[in-house]
């Protein structure tokens, strides 16, 4: 608790730099990441982050300083070049996008490692710390870094704000964008530029290798929760900011813990949670839906069976033994126990020792399912010309699907029929 207060009251200026720095760069990369994600260019972030390394080394060699502004300029140029190389490979050779991505990434990164090794062995005293770009150094951010990050974050966010609708259109339908006269080449250039900028700042915190996660993970997680681009971007930045604060806090309270990797860990947890729990698209909700449909099927099939037995005996509210149910339709003992209990709770059946009988509601529902089954059988034979002995299985599924509106239309279409293709009565 004490640590928490210490941390959030920014008792040391260093904490402030780290917290705001990580938040700014997480938000920038989360926002541009949304666009690379919806454009299906997720790996572009990976290419850029690896390709900035030679730029950083060259600008250090040229200026002899580790001033973030110089390094960023070098990184920006080589990051851009890698994208141009990648596009040129795709356009002028038979090599496809995936291979071109890999080629551009590895060639630039190779040159970067080469230069870095050279610098490390050059005996230049000020070189130490340059290799933090490989793995990030979020916990060691200083005031000058923060200034650079702030400027870049403002540029990135303003650009997205200004060109939001244009970026949206070129991501969805670039051909249409071109036809209505948008300058798509320039817009693409701007979008690439802010992506490179976001990556260049991001790698200072998490390093080259984890940078792709900073771009794509918040966007992918946000996509699970919303179907609107604007909300996706907001949510994605919130995820990014949260990971920034948490990463900084964790490494503050446990100094052996690195900030950058923890940010990525937290983003991954957010993504996993979204993957499982997001409403609508989450795995859990979909499993639950599947489960409730199975339960609905079981209940309706039981009620239909009760109704069928009643039809045969002429008396719908007589007690029915479990064996009788199984004679008509093959339910497993587990299904019977579970299904009957559920029907009892919902008031569709009542119990008399080991026998069961329909309540009024149960009777009505069983009748409706039977009716839908037979209506559908009739429809299939009449309109799809399917032989009467082939329609039963199909109707067994569709009877659970038909809505009251469809039922009314079906009835009208079939001219309010009274019997199905097997001459069974269609109950009213």
């Amino acid at each position, binding site marked *: 608790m004490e640590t928490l207060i210490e941390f959030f009251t920014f008792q040391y200026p260093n904490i402030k730099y780290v917290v705001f720095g990580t938040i700014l760069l997480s938000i920038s990369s989360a926002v541009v990441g949304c666009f690379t994600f919806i454009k299906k260019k997720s790996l572009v972030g990976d290419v850029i982050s690896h390709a900035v390394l030679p730029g950083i080394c060259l600008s250090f060699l040229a200026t002899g300083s580790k001033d973030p502004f110089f390094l960023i300029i070098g990184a920006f140029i080589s990051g851009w070049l890698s994208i141009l190389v990648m596009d040129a490979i795709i356009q002028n050779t038979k090599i496809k996008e995936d291979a071109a991505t890999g080629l551009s990434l590895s060639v630039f990164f190779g040159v970067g490692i080469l230069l870095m090794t050279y610098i490390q062995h050059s005996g230049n005293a000020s070189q130490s710390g340059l290799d933090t770009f490989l793995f990030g150094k979020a916990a060691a951010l200083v005031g000058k870094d923060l200034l650079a990050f702030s400027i870049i974050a403002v540029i990135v966010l303003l650009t997205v704000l200004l060109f939001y*609708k244009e970026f949206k259109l070129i*991501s*969805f*339908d670039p051909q249409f964008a071109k036809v*209505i006269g948008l300058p798509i080449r320039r817009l693409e250039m701007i979008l690439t530029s802010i992506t490179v900028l976001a990556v260049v700042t991001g790698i200072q915190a998490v390093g080259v290798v984890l940078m792709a996660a900073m771009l794509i993970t918040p966007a992918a997680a946000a996509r699970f929760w919303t179907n*609107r*681009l604007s909300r996706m971007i907001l949510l994605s930045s919130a995820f990014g900011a949260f990971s920034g604060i948490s990463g900084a806090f964790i490494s503050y309270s446990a100094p052996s813990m690195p900030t950058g990797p923890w940010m990525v860990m937290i983003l991954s947890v957010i993504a996993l949670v979204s993957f499982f729990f997001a409403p609508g698209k989450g795995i859990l909700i979909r499993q639950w839906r599947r489960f409730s449909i199975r339960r609905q099927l079981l209940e309706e099939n039981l009620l239909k069976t009760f109704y069928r037995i009643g039809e045969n005996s002429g008396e719908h509210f007589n007690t029915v033994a479990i064996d009788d149910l199984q004679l008509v339709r093959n339910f497993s003992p587990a299904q019977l126990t579970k299904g009957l209990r559920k029907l009892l709770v919902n008031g569709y059946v009542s119990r008399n020792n080991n026998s069961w009988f329909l309540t009024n509601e149960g009777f009505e529902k069983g009748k409706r399912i039977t009716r839908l089954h037979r209506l559908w059988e009739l429809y299939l034979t009449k309109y799809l010309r399917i032989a009467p002995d082939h329609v039963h299985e199909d109707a067994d599924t569709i009877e659970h699907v038909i809505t009251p509106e469809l039922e009314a239309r079906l009835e009208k279409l079939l001219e309010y029929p009274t019997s199905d293709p097997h001459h069974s009565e269609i109950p009213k």
Partner: protein
Amino acid sequence: MSNSFVKQVDNPVLEIHDLTVSYDKKPVLWGIDLSIPAGSICGIIGPNGAGKSTLIKAIMDLVDMNSGYVKLFDQTLDEVRKRVSYVPQRESVDWDFPASVLDVVLMGRYANLGLFKNPRKADKEAAMKALEMVGMDKYSKRQISQLSGGQQQRVFLARALTQNADIYFLDEPFAGVDAATEKAIFKILQNLSKEGKTIIVVHHDLQSVETYFEWVILLNLRLVASGPTPEVFTPSLLEETYGGKLTLLTEVGELVQQGEFKAREKQ
């Protein structure tokens, strides 16, 4: 090509002159010359791979031309973009994109909005009106991934309608849509044509050509015919369009591609 038939018109809304287009260095359209009269509903007909979509894309400046020019209303495309509307093939975009139906239709207004400005009330009203015209106003808030093929096509048409253009280019608007949608779309096109707008449609169902189109362009790598439907939609011209490719033309095209020749030497 003794029986080819290309009728040129005076004051055309669309004039294509000596157009040659290559894909991946292989010529796919050779020396197209044609003109279309104002207010007509015109079908571009031809077998698969005949270059129908490419012709529209060349007119829309979406593919590079090796030679020739295109004029709309006797001007270049850049001068008249606001009078031109394009409905791409439905499959050309990813319908899983995070956007609602209204979002997509509003995109038709972006050209008039200009940079930095967000859609206003008038734009939303125009979009809703267009959705109403295509019978999709109830779906305006729906996520586009939940639409059927026919509904997607209606949304694309609505987006084009918000542009209030004078000439419409539609790439296979009837491909993979239900009969009701096809009928509804055609009705809208007919009404547009009655207002004096020109409609150009890539189409491949020969059955409906005579009902739908007043003007027909028959295409198979080269222009076979262009003219009023009764004069052009004849068994002999159809035979020439569909009766096997000109194998010589295809082979020469492949040689051009292999040798990386320029389809036309630029002068």
